[in-house]
């Protein structure tokens, strides 16, 4: 018997492509965020609000990942910015090669912000670097406030957490202090925003922070 000792990262290829993407975006001075959450937390609604707030001053492109359909891209496209749909046909996350292919469809010389809306899932997408500047995880008040403890990898790797649907707080047993405490125990550097896409509360604060990152 012989042993081939490798000690090689299983996602090395993905990581290499992600590094290429990061280099391209840096050279073009494009800021990029990778938005992640469970299905139904309001990623697309937050994106719609964010785009409405930013599109007059910044050039934005959205890359949307879904297992099936281009419904989310259709929603985004109504908001004055180009949306590129990636249909993963069953795969539960986006991989760097899919983003790299998408970049070929985008005019990178005329872009400030690339938003990647990942497939709704808090497990696998956390393992795949897409070359983004930072990950934004969205959690909503209709979910459990223990979610950060159940999916620690995602909350550790994210730089920003948006707590969405805060207009529903009076009606749900969601404890805001608990969710923050749980998330910060996993990632003390996590920046937290609270939003409602129905009342618009908190959207300005989040958008102003995002603008501060754009050149």
């Amino acid at each position, binding site marked *: *018997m012989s042993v081939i000792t490798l000690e090689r990262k299983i996602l090395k290829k993905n990581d290499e492509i992600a590094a290429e993407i990061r280099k391209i975006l840096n050279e073009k001075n494009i800021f990029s965020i990778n938005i992640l959450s469970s299905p139904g937390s309001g990623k697309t609604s937050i994106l719609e609000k964010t785009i409405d707030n930013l599109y007059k001053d910044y050039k934005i492109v959205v890359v949307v990942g879904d297992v099936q359909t281009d419904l989310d891209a259709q929603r985004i496209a109504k908001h004055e910015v180009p949306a590129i749909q990636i249909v993963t046909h069953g795969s539960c996350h986006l991989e760097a090669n899919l983003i790299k292919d998408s970049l070929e469809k985008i005019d990178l010389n005329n872009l400030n912000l690339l938003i990647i809306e990942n497939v709704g899932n808090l497990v696998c997408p956390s393992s795949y670097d897409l070359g983004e500047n930072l990950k934004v995880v969205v959690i909503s008040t209709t979910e459990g406030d223990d979610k950060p403890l159940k*999916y620690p990898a995602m909350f*550790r790797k994210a730089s920003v957490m948006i707590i969405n649907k805060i207009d529903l707080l009076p009606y749900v047993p969601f404890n805001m202090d608990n969710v923050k405490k749980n998330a910060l125990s996993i990632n003390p550097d996590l920046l937290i925003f609270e939003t409602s896409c129905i009342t618009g509360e908190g959207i300005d604060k989040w958008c102003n922070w995002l603008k501060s990152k754009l050149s």
Partner: protein
Amino acid sequence: MSITQNILEEVEEHLKKVAYNKIINIKIKVGELTALDSSSLQFCYEAITKGTKYENVPLIIEEVPLEGFCNNCKKSINIDNFLFICTNCGSSDVTITSGEELILSEINIE
């Protein structure tokens, strides 16, 4: 599922370079922080290897616990329940030293 596909792609790439009669086993290391469940990985591995030369080749998964180093009191610590707080001094300035791995460690052949 695609992680197991990625594993087999890596394995395939390395096996191209060597001569062998039989694959004995494949060993991987999976860190606690990847949140990948060993039994799910085994299930996916069995599903995608069915009818291929990897069918019945054991996938041996070494689970790597989460450990860290406290930058405040300069001690190695265990990180239990994903609480990134030093059990010694209470600081949250903790660097992960292991538990993030997703590594193809060995292929045994004859």
